[in-house]
């Protein structure tokens, strides 16, 4: 397996987590079952704030560059954590399969991820187990479908005299 990342010296739980350097950012790839454990450990290691949590759909780009030991899945939950004391960031990318789009909720570790997880559920369809309010946040409550998925159309209305066809 590839060499562990720089944070693994400080955070024991990161020792066996695959690591990649993405244009200068530290990125770790914990599996779903160890995701909360890793997040909790990072929180105790002074990463006191969750800057961002989003979901990505790799339907059209499944063969993306990943480190050894990471099985590509259709969805990814990407979490950006921030340590104010060190003024540094770390990124976690959790693979979520298409047939079982469930991921543990980060709410218990970072309450600030509540709205972000609701948005990921609303627009991408990933359910967060343990989330206190798993309901849609941006679309109307009775909307069907998850608009940000790559197989959900743009919903364009045909416009007269528009010569060039749209991208999809």
């Amino acid at each position, binding site marked *: 397996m590839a060499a562990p990342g720089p944070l693994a010296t400080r955070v024991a739980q990161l020792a066996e987590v695959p690591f990649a350097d993405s244009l200068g950012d530290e990125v770790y790839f914990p599996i779903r079952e160890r995701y909360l454990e890793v997040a909790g450990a990072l929180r105790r290691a002074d990463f006191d704030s969750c800057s961002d949590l989003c979901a990505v759909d790799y339907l059209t780009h499944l063969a993306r560059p990943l480190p050894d030991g990471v099985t590509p899945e259709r969805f990814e939950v990407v979490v950006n954590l921030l340590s104010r004391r060190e003024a540094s960031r770390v990124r976690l990318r959790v693979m979520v399969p298409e047939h079982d789009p469930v991921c543990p909720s980060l709410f218990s570790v970072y309450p600030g991820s509540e709205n972000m997880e609701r948005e990921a559920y609303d627009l991408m369809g990933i359910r967060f187990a343990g989330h206190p309010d798993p309901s849609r946040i*941006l*679309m*109307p409550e009775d*909307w069907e479908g998850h*608009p940000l998925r790559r197989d*959900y*159309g*743009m*919903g*364009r*209305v045909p*416009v007269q005299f528009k010569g060039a066809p749209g991208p999809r």
Partner: protein
Amino acid sequence: MPVWESWNGLESLRHNFLTGKLEDFVKWSRRSSMWPATFGLACCAIEMMAAGGAEYDMSRFGMEVFRSSPRQADLMIVAGRVSQKMAPVLRQVYDQMVEPKWVISMGVCASTGGMFNNYAIVQGVDELVPVDVYAPGCPPSPNTLLHAILTLHEKVRTGEILRRRAASGSGAGVDLAAAPGWTPPLATPVHLGTPR
């Protein structure tokens, strides 16, 4: 000679009356204090607020009072993009407004959906409410909004409004053509020169 010394009824009061048709006075009062409802949605709302500010000053047209209650408002300036979730709210606010009421669709997102031709935005607020004036721009500068407002005032002044409502069936349901002695106004186009 003092007025009370030779009181001759109405003939003594020479300079204190304006006379005109009732219809003209009604239209003058309607367009001189047409109060907008607060319906700013997105970026256009900021330019609408700027139009109400000191530099562009809607107050000279009697319009600086934005009424939050639709019952007290005459004009709904739909300023911004209308999302699917907001569409029923928009219709409800429009229905709560009392006749006579007008709608200005401000900005390209309200007029046609603008640059957002996708699942989330209603492609033109005229799918929901009847629109009187469309103001293009992204966002239209306060000057453009004022031009749209003055166009609307001109339409009110020439009575265009009554004809359109009678034809489309929307509005207060007053059927002028059925009233005895009513002649339709001349079918002249609205010229936007100096507004009255």
